[in-house]
């Protein structure tokens, strides 16, 4: 069959099972749009900014487990997409981004809307391709999806020149299989390593499971839960891992790291055996590396060999799909041989009784923590919660216990403000029957506000929970702690009227100023099943995120709200990012 390159591309995407593409047109992709226009099985979501397209595809991927797809034009279309691509890359999200490129004869001539897309994105994609020939499109698309979705997932960019989309060629259909000698993601779990790990686990008197985003992305929730229940071990989860193991289960110690719970961090510090599952010892987790887990033998399970030993030396590494490795552990583990850990649990429960998530309420102001607790109650813990970046993100992670994977969608690795709203739109399209809440802040929401328009056009009703503290709160918190309260540029004085703003985009706006109005407003908002509701909640402007591991400190040196006053100046804090 003779087709042009654009038609081939669309047929490939169709054959790949793509149902939604998030994109924005421009000269270099007009042929692709022309072909997409007559395709009835793929819905195209016209965003208002290419960054929004990529975040939406990302939110779609995180919610559904499928590969997200975005389509952007050359030049500024591509550069606008880069933040979104880097966000997905840092969190290992499967995604294919198609960008238009100027016609191949003019590549390198500084043509109109020409940028070196492959060069610009090289360090924030799993792989990228430049396609200059219609004959190469089908195989490249096949490879792109294969690479994006297997092994440690990640975004793949396909940059296609305009002439390649125009040229007609013989199309023999989408390739059924693909083999690449340079990329073989399938790994066999090494039984020897399983044995070694079990030897350590059997001797452990103070074990802990430390699980990360890999458990979510690797669909290992069930196996993780089984292993945790079979062993009776305590489990702590990273910001990216929340939900893989139910937060309300009594074996869950909550999140660990900079703003994790006291019991999680203390247990990590004192542990003699850490079973690391799909986590990568990020600096937000470890605190001061010299003080990190001084007594523990560390087992590290990961699909990506380069994460092993990158930050922390480990005693046993097991490379493989997290789910496969956990299954192997479950099968080989004889739980009768495990040590009695009653005294360990007693110790942990003592730490728990410190109640590190307690916070002081104040007459006349709404505490942001209260907002998240109310959100949890009103949605019965069943919503998909996306978030932006800042204090509100930490509070959402701390006060909304996630019991299922793929319900907590946030930019953990790159910390991209602006992620929350488009990600919520993507999440709603992936799971239309579920409530989607976007927890955001007065700063973050203004970075991708224009997507409110897209959300009206495509009927993706989400509930926007704006924790409006009138500050770039996380910045303000650090300036309070580490810069002697010199609040450079963190006060947002000229905030818009968010209610009117929401209304002007055709949505419902509600402003909440008193705590008594909070729950009724949320209930009312979630009743509006087919409307997007923007709930602007004025919260305590000076509340800080606690507990906190200050910089240079170890897990056992946490600062707790109420108990500890943060030293207002701390030189080592200046070195933190």
């Amino acid at each position, binding site marked *: 069959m003779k087709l042009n390159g654009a038609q081939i591309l669309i047929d490939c995407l169709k054959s790949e099972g793509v149902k939604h593409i998030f994109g924005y047109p421009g000269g270099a992709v007009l042929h692709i749009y022309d072909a997409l226009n007559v395709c009835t099985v793929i819905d195209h979501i016209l965003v208002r900014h290419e960054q929004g397209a990529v975040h939406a595809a990302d939110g779609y991927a995180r919610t559904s487990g499928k590969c997200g797809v975005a389509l952007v034009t050359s030049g500024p279309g591509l550069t606008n997409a880069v933040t979104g691509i880097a966000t997905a890359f840092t969190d290992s999200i499967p995604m294919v981004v198609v960008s238009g490129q100027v016609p191949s004869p003019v590549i390198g001539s500084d043509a109109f809307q020409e940028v070196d897309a492959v060069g610009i994105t090289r360090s924030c994609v799993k792989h990228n391709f430049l396609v200059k020939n219609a004959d190469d499109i089908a195989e490249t698309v096949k490879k792109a999806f294969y690479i994006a979705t297997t092994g440690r997932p990640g975004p793949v960019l396909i940059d296609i020149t305009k002439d390649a989309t125009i040229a007609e060629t013989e199309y023999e259909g989408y390739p059924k299989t693909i083999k690449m000698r340079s990329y073989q993601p399938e790994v066999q779990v090494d039984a020897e390593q399983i044995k070694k790990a079990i030897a350590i686990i059997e001797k452990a008197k103070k074990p802990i499971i430390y699980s990360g985003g890999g458990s979510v992305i690797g669909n290992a929730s069930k196996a993780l839960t089984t292993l945790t229940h079979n062993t009776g071990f305590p489990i702590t989860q990273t910001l990216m891992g929340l939900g893989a193991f139910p937060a309300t289960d009594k074996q869950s110690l909550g999140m660990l790291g900079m703003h994790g719970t006291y019991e999680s961090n203390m247990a990590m510090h004192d542990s003699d055996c850490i079973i690391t599952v799909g986590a990568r010892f990020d600096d937000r987790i470890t605190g001061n590396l010299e003080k990190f887990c001084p007594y523990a033998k560390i087992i590290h399970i990961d699909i*990506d060999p380069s994460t092993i030993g990158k930050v922390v030396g480990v005693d046993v590494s097991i490379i493989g799909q997290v789910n496969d490795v956990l299954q192997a552990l479950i099968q080989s583990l004889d739980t009768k041989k495990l040590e009695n850990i009653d005294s360990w649990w007693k110790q942990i429960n003592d730490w728990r009784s410190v109640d590190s998530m307690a916070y002081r309420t104040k007459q006349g102001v709404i505490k942001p923590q209260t907002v998240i607790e109310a959100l949890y109650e009103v949605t019965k813990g069943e919503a998909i919660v996306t978030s932006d970046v800042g204090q509100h993100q930490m509070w959402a992670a701390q006060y909304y216990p996630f019991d299922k994977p793929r319900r907590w969608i946030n930019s953990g690795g790159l910390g991209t403000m602006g992620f929350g709203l488009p990600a919520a739109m993507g999440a709603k399209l992936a799971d239309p029957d579920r409530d989607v809440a976007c927890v955001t802040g007065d700063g973050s929401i203004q970075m991708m506000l224009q997507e409110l328009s897209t959300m009206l056009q495509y009927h993706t009703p989400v509930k926007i929970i704006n924790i409006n503290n009138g500050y770039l709160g996380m910045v303000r918190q650090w300036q309070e702690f580490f810069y002697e309260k010199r609040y450079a540029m963190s006060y947002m004085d000229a905030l818009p009227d968010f209610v009117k703003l929401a209304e002007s985009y055709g949505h419902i706006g509600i402003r909440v100023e008193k705590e008594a109005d909070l729950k009724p407003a949320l209930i009312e908002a979630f009743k509006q099943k087919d409307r997007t509701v923007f709930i602007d909640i004025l919260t305590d402007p000076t509340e800080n995120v606690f507990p906190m591991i200050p910089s240079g400190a170890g897990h056992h040196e946490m600062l707790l709200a109420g108990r500890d006053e943060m030293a207002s100046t701390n030189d080592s804090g200046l070195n933190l990012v």
Partner: protein
Amino acid sequence: MRHIISVMLENEAGALSRVAGLFSARGFNIESLTVAATNDPTLSRMTIVSVGDDNIIEQIVKQLEKLIDVVKVIDLTATEHVERELLLVKIDVNPNTQADIDRQIDQFSGKIIDVSEDTYLIEVAGQSKKINEFLDSLDASKILEVSRTGVTGVCQKREG
């Protein structure tokens, strides 16, 4: 420690910049890098000399293996191997120094490949150490130009 890392990669546009970009993005150091086609026209072979402790070299190897275009990575230093580098050096010569220089070239099995009225163009091949020694043996003030290829190498076993 100094390591010689041999990388077999797809002979595709952009493959070289992926490797070079990886080294700069992750702050790995490169002492030298050579790349050329092999007997298989679809494969290039790159030889990288880098210095780092065991952890860093391990990371370099793993990060290289992670690149989609990379087919195989061998740390040559970990096996029996041969390394060679080629030096081209242009120097001033005059009747007073010529005999000395001829002797040095001989000693390092070098070759004079071009002679002008007052210059020599010399070629020396061998391990980098030998090339360093040869350059050190010359009077630095007489060296006009130096061009080194960087190291290439193979392991000695039949199966690399």
